[in-house]
């Protein structure tokens, strides 16, 4: 009997220690470990057609291996900044591509390494100046540091995707005009919302004319009530990736969307032989812009290869392949010249300096995070 108890205890200790320690220890100097969003890098050979222009894309990781045969690449993906965050402690990645607010948080927590700009000549040469003057954090000292830790990979805006055949063309980018569609009972069961707290609360705040980063209790309360009412009256469909097919099929009439998702929807329409212009996208003034950036975590083990990779991603042909494949806005000035003008001149995808100045990035602080999370839980529980 006693022996069995002992054996049980041994097994318990063994599993607990398995759970608490991570395995590792193999030689990493020849391996580059990349952790990226899903479907966020060109990983296939294909021909894409955008506005009648053909683009050949290839697997850019294979291209990197051809250019740098000395490295082996391990590539894995996540679908959420919050899922990525705990992983960077458990494993050591050489490249991660978090969104702006997560980059700020990682900088504040000393979890990133400074980039060596002398090893990144392509970045200095090609990065789009319209991203040069962005407020990443209310703390100017932190905000100014961001680009010494991170190189922009893709960016996008948050706006309204809508079915032109049902809503007509919208041209007024006053947030109260644009977002009222989301709260209109005429579209009961036909509005799409992201299952994401900042985008949902942000659209409500923007509609009401408040900052996307407000912590004023009264403003947040108003946004909360608006979203609770929307859940009861308009009954929006909530999701992330599954929403795109629903806009394409016409099941949903309008909804919150990242600009990149709209491009993907238009491609799907074109592939299905339908008019891609059926789905339109409008960016309200003062809405959100987000920038995903390539960074090197503090515990990276192959910093040399990581720099080569970031620089390689800024090679004009590589950046073009990624931009064509992903559909988000590219921060690469040479790519802008090669993409169809219909896309690059569209102020909703490539906002001009004046529009950029009106847009807000999401700030992250303990106060903001926990206040918004509480509001979001209350909305969901209704």
């Amino acid at each position, binding site marked *: 009997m006693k022996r069995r108890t002992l054996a049980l205890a041994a097994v318990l200790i063994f599993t607990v220690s398995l759970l608490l320690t991570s395995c590792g220890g193999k030689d990493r100097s020849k391996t580059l470990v990349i952790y990226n969003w899903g479907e966020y890098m060109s990983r296939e050979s294909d021909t894409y057609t955008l506005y009648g222009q053909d683009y050949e894309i290839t697997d850019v990781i294979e291209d990197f291996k051809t250019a740098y045969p000395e490295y082996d690449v391990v590539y894995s993906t996540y679908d959420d900044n*919050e899922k990525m965050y705990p992983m960077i402690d458990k494993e050591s990645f050489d490249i991660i591509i978090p969104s702006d607010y997560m980059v700020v948080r990682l900088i504040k927590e000393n979890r990133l390494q400074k980039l060596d700009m002398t090893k990144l000549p392509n970045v200095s040469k090609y990065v789009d100046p319209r991203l040069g003057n962005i407020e990443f954090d209310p703390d100017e000292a932190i905000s100014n540091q961001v680009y010494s830790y991170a190189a922009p990979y893709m960016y996008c805006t948050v706006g309204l995707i809508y079915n032109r055949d049902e809503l007509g063309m919208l041209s007024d980018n006053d947030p109260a005009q644009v977002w009222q569609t989301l709260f209109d009972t005429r579209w009961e069961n036909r509005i799409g919302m992201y*299952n994401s707290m900042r985008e949902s609360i942000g659209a409500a705040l923007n509609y009401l004319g408040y900052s996307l980063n407000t912590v004023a209790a009264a403003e947040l309360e108003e946004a909360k009530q608006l979203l609770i009412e929307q859940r009861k009256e308009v009954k929006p*469909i909530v999701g992330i990736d599954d929403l795109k097919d629903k806009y394409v099929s016409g099941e949903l009439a309008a909804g919150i969307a990242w600009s990149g998702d709209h491009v993907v929807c238009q491609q799907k329409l074109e592939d299905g032989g339908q008019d891609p212009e059926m789905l339109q996208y409008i960016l309200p003034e003062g809405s959100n812009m987000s920038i995903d950036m390539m960074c090197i975590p503090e515990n990276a083990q192959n910093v040399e290869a990581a720099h080569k990779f970031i620089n390689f991603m800024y090679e004009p042909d590589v950046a073009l392949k990624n931009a064509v494949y992903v559909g988000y806005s590219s921060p690469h000035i040479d790519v802008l010249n090669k993409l169809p003008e219909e896309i690059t001149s569209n102020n909703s995808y490539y906002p001009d300096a004046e529009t950029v100045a009106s847009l807000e990035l999401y700030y992250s602080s303990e106060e903001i995070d926990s206040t918004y999370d509480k509001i979001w839980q209350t909305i969901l529980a209704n």
Partner: protein
Amino acid sequence: MRMQKLAAPYIIWMAVFTIAPLLLVAFYAFSAYDAAGNLYFTLQGFRSIFSTESTVALDFLGLSSIWHVDLQVPIYINVFAKSLSLALVSTLICLVAGYPAAYILAQRSKAKKGSSFLLFLFVLPMWMNALLRTYAWLALLEPNGIINSFIGIFGLGPVQFLYNDFGIGLGMVYNYLPFMVLPIHSVLLKIDRSVVEAAEDLGANKKQTFLKVIFPLSLPGIFSGINMVFMPAMTTFLIPDLLGGGRYLLIGNAIERQFMVSRDYTVGSALSILLLVFVLASMRVLTKYEEDNAGGGVLG
């Protein structure tokens, strides 16, 4: 002695994959890190579940959505109540729909009228992954889906089947119905034919025979059926996620959110512990009923 040795793999299995994780959950539920990164004992997780800081109207069995009663409760209590009401209703529907099916199946097997094929049809969908079957319902019920296209031919619809209580209830009943039918069926099969004959000989009509003899004898099957349907229905988060259009926060989703999004392991574990206690308690009540009834059976 030899039997005990044979049990060793299971004991190890359970220790590693059941007991150790449970201990971890319990540990997380009662601990948190302070600002300096030190672990300390706390009841904060449980306190915030019952905290009245933010409240919503209780929606147990349609209390606020149908009857418009405004009873403010802490948000997790409402999440719990919503999960409970969906699980209760689904279990009830499974029972009402499943009992006659089990009865007919048992009658046919006793009369040897090819019931094995019917039974096979019942079990067949269970060989497929629940995720795939639930996706299939999406394709059927969508506004532009197969059913709506069909009734559209007659100028009806489109009917909103999805993203509401109906869709989730349907998903649960469909997924869990076999778990109700099979235990009742096997209990009904085991009822001795001579008991029924005795009732008939003593002058009971069909209705009396069923109500006084067959139904009481089948209670153990009903209890284990309820057990097998209610527990998964209470904890599911796949079905509300897909068929609820992501609008539903049930207890399973709430726990997932705490771990994956809010990253509050203390509250997430505390919720898990509460759910576990609730499930164990309701199982205990059911088994007690079962034992009482087995002891007090007709021929007991």
